[in-house]
């Protein structure tokens, strides 16, 4: 697999074309809006909580490159049913991999399909794209 094919795996292109969790909801929820000023990409993301405090769903809208869209979609898929603490552990793990300049592969056991984004970390200019939704969910959780 070439570097480019590794970066844009089928799974990532599929998620960017038919994203999971796309569409904001009318109900009140912790929300965050994030912009990548270098490219104008943006995401608005809501964290909907279940009665026990766990994450019922992440809903989001936005526009951007395949990496940012797939990352938001994969995040929404991953977060469903997790406790806040469990999600925070995964955010930290994902961030560490993304900032590693290709040295750390994402932990597939912890992150599941999100690990397909591992190729991004070798492209420093694209790490922000992959992190956009993750920064938004972190911000929304802090506001909650």
């Amino acid at each position, binding site marked *: 697999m070439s570097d480019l094919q590794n970066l844009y795996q089928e799974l990532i292109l599929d998620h960017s074309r038919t994203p999971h969790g796309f569409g904001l909801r009318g109900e009140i929820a912790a929300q965050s809006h994030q912009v990548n000023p270098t490219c*104008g990409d943006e995401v608005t993301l809501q964290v909907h909580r279940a009665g026990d405090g766990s994450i019922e769903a992440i809903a989001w809208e936005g526009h*951007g490159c395949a990496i940012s869209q797939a990352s938001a979609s994969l995040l929404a898929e991953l977060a469903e049913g997790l406790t806040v603490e469990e999600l925070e552990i995964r955010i930290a793990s994902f961030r560490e991999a993304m900032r590693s300049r290709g040295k750390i592969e994402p932990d597939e056991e912890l992150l599941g399909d999100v690990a397909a984004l591992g190729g991004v970390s070798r492209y420093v200019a694209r790490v922000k794209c992959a992190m956009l939704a993750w920064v938004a969910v972190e911000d929304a959780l802090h506001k909650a």
Partner: protein
Amino acid sequence: MSASRDADVIAPLSDDPLTDAEVRRLREDFPILQVEVNGHPLSYLDSGATSQRPFAVLDAERTFATTLNAAVHRGAHTLAAEATEIFEDARATVARFIGADEGEIVWTSNATEALNLVAYSISNASLGRGGVAAERLRLREGDEIVTTEMEHHANLIPWQELAARTGATLRVIPLDDEGALRLDVAAELIGERTKLVAFTHVSNVLGVINPVEQLVALARAVGALVVLDACQSAPHLPLDVRELDVDFAVLSGHKMLGPTGIGALYGRRELLEIMPPFLTGGSMITTVTTTEATYLPPPQRFEAGTQKVSQTVALAAAVDYLTAVGMPRIAAHEAAFGARLVEGLSAIDGVRVLGAGIDLPRVGLASFDVDGIHSHDLGQFLDDRGIAVRVGHHCAQPLHRRLGVTSSTRASTYLYTTDDEIDAVLDGVQGAIDFFRRGA
């Protein structure tokens, strides 16, 4: 400091495009054009963002640093005197290049600073600085500043801020659906209240050469000042600020074969003379007491602090290099690329070239949107083939918003660009479409 090792093979007085042989010779002057990127020879199509530097420019900066380095306009030792002379010679060289007098060129760090210099000087005049002489620069509530919807943020935000500080109103000449300036609306917007009209000579997104003459005529009819953003024209077209009859023009050294950290403001002499300073401090004063200071005449009045000397020397070398090749020839060379890019990209299914339908001459620059493929992904694909293009909003969000896109991909050429590189871009865009649509 020779302008070019190969200047003897070039015929600068002709208007013909550069021949393939000439471009091959020129490319040998640019060491970076020999590098490989991701296993491919570099195809550098991002000169609109920053241009590459020939040996003549690199050598000029190095020679200055190794044989002449000293602070200018102070000190009496030999190096200080020689450095001052070469610094002022550089000013004269850049002035000649754009048809100005040397006293009309102010060195700045970049074009953004040059635009801010004008805006802050007017702002200071509006606060009463500069005394009676600066009266004609003052802005008050009810006065209007006019700019356009296609500007680079650097020629928009300083005017937004100036309006906010002075109570003046900022009015914006809109674009039509293709992206061309609505000159009919401009004629209505520019009126008795208009004090300043700021616009770009060449759009950094559309590549079109704006009708400067018509806009200047509208401004002159109401006595408004004209500020021209020449960042994308000075590197690529013969430029004569007096012929264009503008009051101010700004340019960026690193877009015209020079180094980063150097730009220039052209200001009509009688305006520079009445303008209060923007940055203040050392080197721009005549007499200083603990309570007040008097200022030097322009251009020194606007050059506070230790100056960027090696950068000015290098920029002068860049200008000499361009002059030796011949600006009319460079313009002809690049006009052909502009036409090829627009035509070739438009022919690809799913590609929309921004401003393709505008009936104006253009430089070698085209920005485009590919249906279903974000510019970042497209840029990444091209980079994998060693092709460098710009992606994003190119510091022109209002223009992109008007044309219904958030970002675009931009290919921009220069004198060293080859037909093969244009082919590589066109093939690459088709390749990206095939790649990203796989499995869809």
